[in-house]
């Protein structure tokens, strides 16, 4: 069985707290630890922030759509916008960049540019598709119904 909910916000940074809060709590329906739920929230917030910042250039007149799909062993979230698409080569490059930064001099530590690397580190699978003006970043996290956060079965 699959359970599914769609969340939609206007592309305004002020609405991100609503998405993050909802996603975090929705993760309590699956056997994820609190830390894992926080990480899922983080990945979704990074992706939604990217859509607002980069796809829509902070213009709040658009929408970002999040699909949260629970199957028995996997959580799939996709984040979709209708703005300027993400360059897939840039994405692959970001995925390969280590979060590790050798230097401990703050001047050499980048201020931004960690979003996609964080998502790629935390999630089991990340892909991006731009089709007919709709761009979706899809991320998947597998979980195990028998171990994990012991929050009871998915169909609780």
């Amino acid at each position, binding site marked *: 069985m699959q359970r599914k909910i769609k969340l939609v916000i206007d592309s305004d*940074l*002020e609405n*991100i*707290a609503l998405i*993050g809060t909802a996603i975090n709590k929705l993760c309590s329906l699956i056997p994820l630890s*609190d*830390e894992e739920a*926080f*990480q899922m*929230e*983080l990945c979704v*917030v*990074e992706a939604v*922030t990217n859509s*607002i*910042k980069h796809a829509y250039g902070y213009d709040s007149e658009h929408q970002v759509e999040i699909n949260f799909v629970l199957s028995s062993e996997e959580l799939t979230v996709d984040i979709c916008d209708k703005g300027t698409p993400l360059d897939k080569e840039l994405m692959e490059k970001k995925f390969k960049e280590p*979060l*590790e*930064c050798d230097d*401990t001099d*703050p*001047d050499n*530590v*980048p*201020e*931004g540019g*960690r*979003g996609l690397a*964080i998502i790629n*580190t*935390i999630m089991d699978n990340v892909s991006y598709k731009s089709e007919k003006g709709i761009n979706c970043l899809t991320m998947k996290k597998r979980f195990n119904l028998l171990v994990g956060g012991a929050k009871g079965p998915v169909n609780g």
Partner: protein
Amino acid sequence: MVIVEERMDSVDVLRLEGRLDASSANDLKEKVNDFAQEKRLNFVIDMAAIDFIDSSGLGSLVSSLRSVNKLGGDIKIASLKDAVRSIFELTRLHRIFEIFDDAEAAVKSFEV
């Protein structure tokens, strides 16, 4: 996010409450810059009441650190919740910031 200001010895303690994300990152940077203009350069950022931080929030901390470092000041971090600390570690920023268990310890570290 809410920023509560407090002055302990000659250190400005900023207690953050709520979510430090893209919608509030600039609030923190501006607050630090405002103080820096008054030559108040030593800060403790108390995150006991921060439930969520993302890369934009972390970016605002790095950028604030850089700007006060340039003027001879410093920023220390205090009271991270477990989930927040894990994001500092994931992004290796625990190597850039001095992190203390509570604001008092962080303030004391400036006295040496």
